[in-house]
C-alpha cells in the first residue's frame, strides 16, 4: 500500500526510534508487562506502522464495501443507509408472558424479534415429559403445539416483523409452526422474513441441545435449505453459530475457525443432496460473539467476512454475489458478565456492542446487566436496548463505513486472524471435516483447553476482571431479579391435556404415520411436518416419531 522508497524510510526511522527513544524510555519507565497478548494469545507489538502492512494489497484484500472480498462490509453504504436490526433475544414462561415482552420491546423501538425457547422445546420434549421436570418455561418460552405458537405471536403482524428463532434439533417443527401461524394471519411463506438457527453441529460442540445423530441431523438441516429455496426466499435457513463456541471458552480465532468449518460442512452436505451452491448459499447467515478485546473483535469480524468470501468463491465456485457475503448477527459475550457489581456489565456490553458495530454486524443483541444472576428484568433489558440506540444515534461511529480500516494495528490483526483461522480449517480438513473433528473430540478439546487457560489466567491475576479479582467491594444481594412463575409447568401440562382432548386425534395419528413412513425414505420431511403441526400434533409427538427412526445422539466427553 506504500511505495518502496517511502517504506524504506519508515523502516529506517522506526529502527532509530526504537534504538534511541524507546531504549531510553524503557530505562526510566519499564512497561507494565513483559509480553502483551491478544485474547487469542497472539503477541501484540508496541507499535504498528506501515511496515506491518508491507505485503498488503488494498484492492485485493480490502476493496470497497459491498465488493469482494467484503472485508469492509457487505453493503455499500452500511449504517449510512440503515442501522443494524436491534434484536433482543427474549422469551420465558408461557406464550402469553413472552408475547407481552415482545410487544413491550417493539414499543420501545426494537426492530426485530428473537425467540428464546425453553430447554424441553429445544430438545423436542413436551412439557409433560419426565425429562422436562423443573425446566418448563425457565430459559425461554414453552411451546408444545401450534396452539402455543398462535398465542406467542398474537397481535404481531408477521408480514411486518422479522423473527429469529433459536431452535436447532427440532428446527423443522418450529419453522412449520411459524408458517402455520402466518397462514392464519393471511401471510404466505414467501413474505416471511427471519432466521432459524438450525445449526446442530455447534450443539454437539458447545451448546448441548442435540437430539439426533449427525447424519439425520444434516438431512433435516438440508431439508430446510431445499424447502426454503422453493417456498421462503426471504428466510435465512441457518444461522451458523460461533457464539456458543466462544461462550464455551474458545478464543476469537477458534470461534471463527470452528464456525467456518461448520459452514463448510453444511455447504458440502447441501451439494451432496443435489442442491446448487448459488441456490441455497445466499440464505446462509452467521452468528458471532462480541467479547471484550475491542480491536481484536473488530478484526475478527472483518477477517471472517473476507475468508468466507474466499472459501465460497474458491472452494465452492459460488458465482452469486450473495453467496459470497457473510451476513451475521452478533450477541455480546454472556460469559464476560459478572455477578459481582452487576451494573459494571452495562459498560462491558457497551464496549462489546461497539465492537460489533465497528465490525459491521447486520443485527445485534445486547445482554442485560443482571444475566449472571437470572433472566433479565424488564428495566435491565431496556438499558441493554438503549445501549444500542445510543451507539446508533449518538456515537458517530455509524456515519462512515468501516471506520477502523487502515489502522495499522486492526489491519495487521485482521490478516493474522485470517491466517490462524485458515491453519485450523486445514487441520480440520485433514481430520475429514467438522463432523469428524467433532466425533474425535478435537474441537471440543481445543475449546476446553482455552476455557481452562482463561480461568487460570484470572486466578493467577494475569487477566483482570474488574470487581472479581480486582477492585472488589462488599455488596448486598441484588434486588429486582426476574423470577419465572413456578406455576408455568403445571399450566402448560394442563393445557396440553386439554389440547389432546379437543383435537382430531385420528388425523394426528394419520399424519404422524405418514411422517414415520417418509422418514425411512430420503424424502424432504418439511411438508409432512407442516401437516402434522397443522393438525395440532405436539412437538414431542413429532420428535418421538423421528427419534424412533433416527435414534439419539450420545456425547462422549474427554476431559
Amino acid at each position, binding site marked *: 500500500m506504500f511505495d518502496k522508497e517511502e517504506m524504506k524510510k519508515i523502516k529506517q526511522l522506526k529502527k532509530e526510534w526504537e534504538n534511541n527513544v524507546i531504549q531510553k524510555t524503557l530505562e526510566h519507565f519499564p512497561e507494565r508487562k513483559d509480553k502483551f497478548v491478544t485474547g487469542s494469545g497472539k503477541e501484540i507489538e508496541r507499535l504498528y506502522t506501515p511496515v506491518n502492512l508491507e505485503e498488503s494489497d488494498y484492492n485485493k484484500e480490502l476493496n470497497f464495501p459491498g465488493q469482494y472480498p467484503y472485508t469492509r462490509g457487505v453493503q455499500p453504504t452500511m449504517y449510512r443507509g440503515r442501522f443494524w436490526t436491534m434484536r433482543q433475544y427474549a422469551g420465558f414462561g408461557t406464550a402469553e408472558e413472552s408475547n407481552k415482552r415482545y410487544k413491550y420491546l417493539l414499543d420501545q423501538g426494537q426492530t426485530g424479534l428473537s425467540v428464546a425457547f425453553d430447554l424441553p422445546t429445544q430438545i423436542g420434549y413436551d412439557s409433560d415429559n419426565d*425429562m*422436562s421436570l423443573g*425446566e418448563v418455561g425457565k*430459559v425461554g418460552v414453552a411451546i408444545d403445539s401450534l396452539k402455543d405458537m398462535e398465542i406467542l405471536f398474537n397481535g404481531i403482524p408477521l408480514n411486518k416483523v422479522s423473527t429469529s428463532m433459536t431452535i436447532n434439533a427440532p428446527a423443522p417443527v418450529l419453522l412449520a409452526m411459524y408458517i402455520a401461524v402466518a397462514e392464519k394471519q393471511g401471510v404466505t411463506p414467501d413474505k416471511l422474513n427471519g432466521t432459524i438457527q438450525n445449526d446442530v453441529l455447534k450443539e454437539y460442540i458447545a451448546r448441548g441441545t442435540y437430539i439426533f445423530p449427525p447424519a439425520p441431523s444434516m438431512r433435516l438441516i438440508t431439508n430446510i435449505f431445499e424447502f426454503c429455496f422453493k417456498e421462503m426466499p426471504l428466510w435465512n435457513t441457518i444461522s451458523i453459530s460461533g457464539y456458543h463456541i466462544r461462550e464455551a*471458552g474458545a478464543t476469537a480465532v477458534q470461534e471463527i475457525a470452528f464456525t467456518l468449518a461448520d459452514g463448510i460442512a453444511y455447504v458440502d452436505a447441501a451439494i451432496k443432496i443435489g442442491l446448487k451452491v448459488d441456490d441455497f448459499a445466499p440464505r446462509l447467515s452467521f452468528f458471532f460473539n462480541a467479547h471484550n478485546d475491542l480491536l481484536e473483535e473488530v478484526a475478527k469480524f472483518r477477517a471472517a467476512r473476507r475468508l468466507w468470501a474466499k472459501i465460497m468463491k474458491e472452494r465452492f465456485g459460488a458465482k452469486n454475489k450473495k453467496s459470497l457475503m457473510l451476513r451475521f448477527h452478533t450477541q455480546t459475550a454472556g460469559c464476560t458478565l459478572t455477578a459481582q457489581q452487576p451494573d459494571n456489565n452495562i459498560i462491558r456490553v457497551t464496549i462489546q456492542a461497539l465492537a460489533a458495530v465497528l465490525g459491521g454486524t447486520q443485527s445485534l443483541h445486547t445482554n442485560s446487566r443482571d444475566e449472571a444472576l437470572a433472566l433479565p428484568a424488564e428495566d435491565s433489558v431496556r438499558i441493554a436496548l438503549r445501549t444500542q440506540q445510543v451507539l446508533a444515534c449518538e456515537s458517530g461511529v455509524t456515519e462512515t463505513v468501516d471506520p477502523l480500516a487502515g489502522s495499522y494495528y486492526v489491519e495487521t490483526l485482521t490478516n493474522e486472524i485470517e491466517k490462524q483461522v485458515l491453519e485450523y480449517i486445514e487441520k480440520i480438513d485433514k481430520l475429514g471435516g467438522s463432523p469428524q473433528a467433532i466425533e474425535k473430540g478435537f474441537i471440543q478439546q481445543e475449546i476446553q483447553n482455552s476455557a481452562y487457560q482463561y480461568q487460570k489466567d484470572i486466578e493467577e491475576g494475569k487477566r483482570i476482571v474488574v470487581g472479581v479479582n480486582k477492585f472488589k467491594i462488599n455488596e448486598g444481594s441484588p434486588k429486582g431479579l426476574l423470577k419465572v412463575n413456578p406455576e408455568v409447568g403445571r399450566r402448560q401440562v394442563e393445557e396440553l391435556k386439554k389440547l389432546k382432548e379437543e383435537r382430531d386425534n385420528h388425523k394426528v395419528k394419520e399424519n404422524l404415520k405418514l411422517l414415520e413412513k417418509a422418514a425411512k425414505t430420503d424424502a424432504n420431511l418439511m411438508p409432512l411436518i407442516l401437516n402434522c403441526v397443522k393438525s395440532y400434533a405436539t412437538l414431542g409427538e413429532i420428535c418421538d416419531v423421528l427419534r424412533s427412526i433416527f435414534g439419539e445422539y450420545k456425547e462422549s466427553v474427554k476431559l
Partner: protein
Amino acid sequence: MEGKKIRVLIAKPGLDGHDRGAKVVARALRDAGMEVIYTGLRQTPEQIVETAIQEDVDVIGLSILSGAHTHLFPKVMELLKENNVEDIIVMGGGVIPEEDIPELKKVGISGIFTPGTDTRDIIKFIKEKVK
C-alpha cells in the same frame, strides 16, 4: 505414603447444555490431585446417584445454569437419603440466585458456588469437608 485420593463426581442434571464451568472445575480438581468423573449432559437425578454409588465418590458437584436447580438439587438429595449414602458431600454451582441458597442448604447441599468463584476456593472446600 499418600492417603486415598478424593473421588469427585461432576454432574450435569437436567437439560441444560452449559458445561464450560463443569468442565473447568473438573479439570481444576483433577489438577489438584483428585480423581474426577464427569457425567456429561442430561443426567437424571437417578442416573447421578447411581453413578455416585458405583464410583464410590466422596463428593458430588452439580452444575445447573437453567434455573432448574430448585427442582433437581433437592431430588438428588432425596435419592441419596433413600440409598443410604447421605455421607456423600454435595455441592452445587451455576446461575443460582442468592435467595434460593438457604433452601438448598436446608436440604443438605453443603456448598453453593456461583459465577466468579475461584476454583481454589472449591478445592479448599472439598479438602476441608472430606477428611
